């Protein structure tokens, strides 16, 4: 089907090896009959969690594009979509840990991350710094062998159930804003961390405000150099965009799969106008999916750059358009729900799963950087167009209007 790049080093695992390793795990630890942590632990030990990672860190140094193969075997054996075990851990954090943490620290963090025993969250955004992440105000001040941190974060998904966080803080307010940031790993059980859930449009309380009051972080939990936090954070953001944009793996799965199923299930609601609209959405979805496939084949290193903004942008806007279609197709039924309880199970299931996904889809063009910011990234960093006039890039952070 696809022309696979020839494998130079003899020891690089190929599809057959990945497949065999995956089958062995699901045979020895049948999903559904063993505890999830055992299954995911064995998956990790076999190097299947992130196949392109080094051995011992949940990988086997295989080409990254073999990951979907492993995940498919897990799925077919009745196991979970692996990322759902620890959404932020898998999609956002793991890559940065692998790239920047010492091997020993990475080994300590990644296995419980992979099994889902220790959940992760991302403490980036602040009340005063969302799109302008580099403008953040949370301060980290050097103290002995570590750092004392004060500030407030917001919109932090899953912080209320997380054991660990990646944290971006300002270590030098006297230099321009991109230069004074440092990246840390924070133990959410540290004294001074106060997590307060916030309720979302869906009714559920899945993101949070996090107050940091004299929180101490050992310097060993710093990733990257002091002052290079922006650089490290960008690798996290690129991973996040990739994971947000790349969820659709098989033709007709994901949002468009929901819409097509709905179409089939409700013949009385069908009309020529809606048929054409759905067909157009299917075409867009398939073009998007093929673009992801193409990017996956092209990416040999596992490093992702600003191009990740393209799939993030396309995927998020498409998801919204598809669920907008679903609601109109359902007509009167589309405006019904079952509950807005803050502790409702998820944003997917139940008799009104489509309506829930419709509501949840409004977040996709905000989380992980808004669509406006994605277009700026594509325009400026991919197409190298000139930037809009800015007054905040060269002056010391403390002098920027807020």
């Amino acid at each position: 089907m696809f022309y696979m790049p020839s494998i130079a080093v003899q020891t690089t695992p190929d599809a057959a090896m990945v497949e065999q390793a995956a089958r062995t795990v699901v045979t020895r630890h049948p999903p559904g009959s063993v505890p999830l942590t055992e299954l995911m632990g064995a998956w990790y030990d076999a190097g299947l969690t992130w196949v392109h990672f080094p051995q011992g860190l949940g990988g086997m140094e295989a080409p990254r594009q073999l990951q979907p193969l492993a995940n498919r075997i897990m799925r077919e054996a009745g196991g979970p979509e692996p990322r759902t075990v620890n959404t932020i851990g898998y999609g956002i954090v793991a890559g940065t840990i692998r790239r920047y943490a010492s091997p020993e620290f990475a080994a300590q963090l990644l296995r419980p991350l992979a099994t889902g025993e220790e959940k992760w969250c991302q403490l980036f955004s602040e009340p005063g710094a969302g799109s302008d992440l580099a403008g953040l105000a949370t301060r980290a001040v050097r103290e002995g062998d570590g750092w004392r941190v004060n500030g407030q974060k917001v919109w932090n998904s899953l912080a209320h159930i997380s054991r660990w966080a990646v944290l971006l803080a300002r270590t030098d307010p006297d230099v321009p804003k991109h230069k004074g940031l440092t990246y840390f790993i924070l133990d959410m059980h540290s004294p001074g961390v106060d997590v307060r859930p916030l309720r979302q449009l869906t009714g559920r309380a899945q993101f949070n405000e996090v107050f940091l009051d004299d929180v101490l972080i050992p310097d060993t939990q710093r990733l990257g150099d002091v002052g290079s936090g922006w650089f490290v954070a960008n690798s996290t953001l690129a991973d996040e965009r990739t994971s947000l944009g790349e969820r659709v793996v098989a033709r007709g799965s994901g949002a468009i799969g929901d819409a097509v199923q709905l179409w089939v299930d409700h013949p009385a609601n069908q009309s020529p106008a809606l048929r054409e609209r759905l067909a157009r959405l299917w075409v867009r979805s398939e073009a998007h999916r093929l673009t992801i496939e193409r990017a996956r084949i092209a990416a040999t290193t596992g490093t992702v750059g600003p191009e990740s903004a393209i799939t993030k942008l396309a995927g998020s806007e498409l998801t919204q358009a598809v669920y907008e279609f679903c609601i109109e197709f359902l007509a009167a039924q589309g405006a019904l729900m079952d509950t807005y309880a803050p502790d409702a199970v998820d944003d997917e299931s139940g008799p009104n799963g489509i309506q829930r996904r419709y509501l949840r889809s409004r977040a996709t063009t905000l989380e992980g950087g808004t669509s406006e910011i994605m277009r700026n990234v594509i325009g400026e960093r991919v197409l190298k167009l000139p930037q809009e006039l800015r007054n905040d890039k060269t002056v010391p952070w403390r002098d920027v209007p807020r």
Partner: protein
Amino acid sequence: MTQEFEFGEEIVALRAMVREFCAEQAPESTVRTAMESELGHDPALWRRFGSELGVFGLAVPESDGGDGAGLVPHAVVVEEFGAALVCGPTLGALCLALPALIALPDAQARQDYLPGLIAGELIATLAAPTVHGVFDPEAATVSATTGPGGWTLSGGLAHVPDGASADILLVPARTQEGLALFAVERGAAGLAHTDLFTMDRTRRQATFELADTPARLVADEVAAPAVCARAVRVATALLAVSQVGGAQRMLDVTVQHVRTRIQFGQAVGAFQAVKHRCANMLMEVEQARSAAYHAVWALDSDSEIDDPDLAVALAKAVASDAFTSITRAAIQLHGGIGFTWEGSPQLYFKRATADLVTLGTGTEQVENVARLVLDRRVAAANVPEPTLT
């Protein structure tokens, strides 16, 4: 009657009065309390709108106890209610039941219901059978039989706006001769309802089951179809006006937000991506306003400015697009706050979703336009030329 689009001093004053009353008596905090309550609205507040503010009878002829001011001022009230998301039976009572009752040829029935409705004391709703947002007697799901004890109705009704709070349910039902309109009282024998959990908690719906439920005939088979068709048209135009109200409010709130929210050392409204989106929102709401009020004027008594069916379909199509698109933009331009429960955009977004699929979805109304404009043109073109012999 005023000329189309002429909003005279009285209308301007009326709008200001209703807006002020809403701001004071039904601010967003009140809306949130009401929408979390079981009934979904505060009947005492509804009565105050009717009696203290006295704006429910503007479209009712003076002979029936109203102000005889026509549909335009009534629409202004509905628009302001839409802007404030006033919780209450606006759709059921003010948009659907009121025009139906006004159109009843039976003076006694008008007298029995309209004064209570005007005072906010009596809540009525209409369960009109529609297909693609157009009244269609064939879609009736209730049948009526007459016997020594009078009429009884049997059948089911889906998605009845404000059903649970209605004292009087106006039900079009099939008889031997055609379709007649009946009034069913709350608590009537054999009447059961189920409250639906609506996505927009400020607009409620219920389903009903009727089993030999006693009912009063209020319009016979000759009058009922016209009464129902009129009510559905008026309700659809008023719903479009309400969408305009909500859309304008979201535009205002959003512009205010992007003017003050600072990122990258400047107000985010300074970025063209944001500014242009706001400009688009304004364009959309202005077009929706034109189309919606055009429909209201077209439906006002003896005006012949347009085909009412076309004007209504146009209004609902344009306003549905505008309201959904503007509320989506409002969420987006608010950033994270836009996705919270506490922020205003989510309330309007859910209202826009509900309105989109009520009384004909946006797409269905576009289809109605196609039928009324394109299909008619084709039919006209295909009429054979009279042949001369």
